[in-house]
């Protein structure tokens, strides 16, 4: 057992550092042999790197690094970064998603000339996400957010001869650029009001600031920045485009890891910097997030219900899920004992979501590999040809819909129960209604695959091992999270409670 407590404190960042180092190693590989299309080496390096990152994150979580049991959070580099349970929890999510995406890309990119760049960008983005989870200052949050975003733009437009991919990249980029400018301006306003950028400093400054209006505007704009990263209203409209146009493994990566990263930093910023105990009256971000959550989940679900294209439907549904996760922020109240539970449930939902949504998009990657087509009709009768993969997809769909035997039910249950317990029954009600609605469009996929007859005869070309393995890992994760939810939810809620301590 590797004990972080026996190592220098900076090693608490190991999960992030390993991701970054792996990216650099891949760059070195590509420098040595820039024409290489050795998928095994490149994807393998990426997988090994992300898995070791996951191992460290999990080991640290188990050991209690940064948690109360081992002396509380570890702050590094002059309070710029903090490693606590929540940071490690999210790092574990990112590492698992990267691992799955890398395995899947092994087949997806088989013919591509720029594989090394692909994995490097994924890993750099994941590094940025890890840093987002560990950010303890608005400056670091912004830099990390950009580090996560910039490679993502390139990744979305990675298929540069594919018009859809390029268009998706452009839209993702344009909205990303605007929202990061808004975010930066928000930070500057908060700085203007408080004179500090570290979360603790901002909290201290907010308590008796004279510029309440400026601070309020700043908070609003920062919330806008997070809305972009998490694909929530009002900066959500890039999501369906980007997810539809991007290479499917990247859609998987963005819709789960990137979203989780946005929430990670939003959780910390709003619970520590703009903590309810210090925020001046008049800046009611809880209400803001409440409204955003309701609008986001409703809009996402209704839009998803009207789609013909499965990938796009998943894109909208991921907006809906952002709405659910927002409940974690919307159901907080100052000094409530339930805060940790609500936030923890939201985190657990993001973890489960990380598996099931990644899996769903990777299944899309599989169909893209087979050239099956993208509409519901194109999936007709797929189960006859590929029952195992379709069974996995069924698990993802039902889990996303929140049906009980799968992980998605649990996280949603905890989320809604937490919201009710915290006194926000209307959030839970809207969430539950949306959840029921979502079953309609998720089951359409299942119906197409299993029940409909194929329109014509088609033969699936090959059985891509990597894609299959990745889909199976995700399915297994979604299933195992049912009996294994106990440690996850307990960890999530205890680390979330630490934020309010």
């Amino acid at each position: 057992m590797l004990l972080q407590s026996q190592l220098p404190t900076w090693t608490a960042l190991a999960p992030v550092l390993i991701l970054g180092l792996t990216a650099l190693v891949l760059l070195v590989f590509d420098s040595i042999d820039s024409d290489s299309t050795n998928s095994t080496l490149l994807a393998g390096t990426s997988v090994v790197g992300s898995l070791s990152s996951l191992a460290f994150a999990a080991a640290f979580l188990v050991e209690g690094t940064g948690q109360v049991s081992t002396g509380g959070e570890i702050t590094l580099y002059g309070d710029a970064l903090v490693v606590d349970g929540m940071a490690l929890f999210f790092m574990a999510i990112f590492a698992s998603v990267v691992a799955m995406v890398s395995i899947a890309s092994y087949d997806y990119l088989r013919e591509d000339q720029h594989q090394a760049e692909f994995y490097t960008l994924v890993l750099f983005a994941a590094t940025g996400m890890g840093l987002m989870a560990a950010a303890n200052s608005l400056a670091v949050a912004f830099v990390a957010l950009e580090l996560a975003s910039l490679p993502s733009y390139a990744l979305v437009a990675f298929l540069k001869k594919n018009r859809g991919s390029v268009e998706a990249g452009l839209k993702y980029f344009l909205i990303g650029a605007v929202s990061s400018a808004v975010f930066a301006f928000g930070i500057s306003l908060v700085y203007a009001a408080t004179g500090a950028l570290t979360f603790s400093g901002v909290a201290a400054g907010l308590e008796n600031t004279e510029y309440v209006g400026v601070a309020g505007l700043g908070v609003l704009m920062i919330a806008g920045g997070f809305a972009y990263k998490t694909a929530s209203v009002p900066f959500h409209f890039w999501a369906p485009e980007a997810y539809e146009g991007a290479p499917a493994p990247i859609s998987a990566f963005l819709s789960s890891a990137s979203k989780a990263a946005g929430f990670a930093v939003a959780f910390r910023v709003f619970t520590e910097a703009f903590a309810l105990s210090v925020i001046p009256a008049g800046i009611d971000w809880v209400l803001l997030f409440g409204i955003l959550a309701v609008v986001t989940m409703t809009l996402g679900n209704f839009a998803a219900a009207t789609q013909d294209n499965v990938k796009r439907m998943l894109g909208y549904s991921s907006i809906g899920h952002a709405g659910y996760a927002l409940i974690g922020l919307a159901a907080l109240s100052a000094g409530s004992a339930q805060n940790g539970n609500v936030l923890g449930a939201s985190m657990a939902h993001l973890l489960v979501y990380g598996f099931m949504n990644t899996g769903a998009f990777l299944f899309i990657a599989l169909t893209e590999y087979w050239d099956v087509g993208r509409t519901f009709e194109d999936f007709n009768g797929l189960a006859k040809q590929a029952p195992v993969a379709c069974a996995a997809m069924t698990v993802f769909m039902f889990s996303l819909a929140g049906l009980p035997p799968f992980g998605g039910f649990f996280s949603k249950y905890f989320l809604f129960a937490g919201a009710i317990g915290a006194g926000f029954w209307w959030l839970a009600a809207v969430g539950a209604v949306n959840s029921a609605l979502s079953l309609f469009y998720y089951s359409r996929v299942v119906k197409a695959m299993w029940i409909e007859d194929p329109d014509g005869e088609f033969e699936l070309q090959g059985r891509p091992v990597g894609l299959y393995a990745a889909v199976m890992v995700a399915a297994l994760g979604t299933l195992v999270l049912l009996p294994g939810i106990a440690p996850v939810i307990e960890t999530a809620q205890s680390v979330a409670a630490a934020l309010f301590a």
Partner: protein
Amino acid sequence: MIIEALIAFTFVAALVTFVAPNKVAGKLAFGLSLVPIAGSLLMWSQFDATGNALLGGSLAFEETFEWLTLAGYELSWHTGVDGISMPLVVLTTVLTSLAIVSAWTPIDDRQSQFYGLFLFMEANLLGVFTALDFFMWFIFWEAVLIPMYFLVGVWGGPRRKYAAIKFFVYTNIASLVMFIGFMALVFGLGDSITSLGLPEIAQALRADELGTFYGIDAATLKLVAFVAMFLGFGVKVPIVPLHTWLPDAHVEAPTPASVMLAGVLLKMGTYALLRFNFTMLPETASALAIPIAAIAVLSVIYGAMLALAQQDLKRIVAYSSVSSMGYVILGLIAYTEFGVGGATFQMIAHGLISGLMFMAVGVIYNTTHTRMVGDMSGMADRMPVTTGIFIAGAFGYMGLPLMAGFAGEFFIFVGSFGSTVLPYAPLFTAAAMFGIVIVAGYLLLAMQRTLFGQFRLETDYEVGPAALHDTLPLAVLLLLVIALGVAPELFFQMITDAVNPILQTGGGL
């Protein structure tokens, strides 16, 4: 541990079957499904529980494993059986095996997936009837839907897609409504419970520990929760007017799925009504006795009338199920030993009889490829054995003495007639009894038109007796029906033992 072993074994069996080759899947699944039968019979033989599982009675084969603590509630794996669930467990295992055999002929595509789903469903059904922790129970409850959805959707008739989606959406929304209602109770109980164990919740509710929740007082909360749960479970039962999914699902489902649907899945609804509504909230139930009884009688009469108007044999049997389930509700609301006990007994009886009827219709359909009453006649000539069993089953349905159906209905009427909870009990009972007449009417009519007279179905093949493996399950079921009719105390003893606590501690019922 035997319950856990059974459930786990069935799950594994499902997985094994799922990956087995199509050719052997049917036989394999049958072989594997014998183990749960043996297990459930073993349980029965060693059954030693007394009292109601939820109300402090001793349980048989009880197991508890801590799982996780959440927001002050302990969730655990908690299983056990009492007199109410034990017969249902036996019913589930037996009926599953027989349904698997009855699937050998009609299912000729993707067999391994079919039987895999079947066993998966069985595992979850066992879970539903044995789980005593709300969370576990709910997971199994919902998980049953998924295989059924596929069974109807993939192997069903021409309108299978519509039927499957309708079934799925109906029952899922119902689950959600029920879930919210139950959760309202849980939150209302507040700190007085420390886990989501059903016994603890039931006892807390009966001890009147329900507090206010969001300013809603306890009585209103109970009412709301009761209604929500009643509607939620009512869809599964189904009660009129929430029954519209059922004919579609039944007609489109392949025979074995219909057997399971009518035989076991509907019982989930009444079982849950008994466990939740009528055990946990007796005062509310008795306060609502008249509307509930009205719904029960409506189900009986309306279901029977609808059955009378059908031309499709399967539809007839399906609607008659609606009718039969109405009796069960009536028995439950009676709140007498014979009423509730009879209702529970009727669940078993109806499970066997409706299974038998659906199978018989299936066997006829396999041969004739039609289910329309008008298309067939004189089947008795060509399929004498099947016909005989069919007639016997129909008599069981009508409640002929010495059949299980008679015992169940008789107990229910006795119980409801003497009910003190239900005002105008004799009136309701009499109205419900009228249903029997209609049932007899349509069944006789259907039999007369299909089975007797001149055979005139035009086919390009010889219509002859069904294969042995098609007939055997029918015979077995018939034997069971008769056995239960002759000796209802096989189950009735343990049932009343478990039912009595519900009545006793009911607070002035």
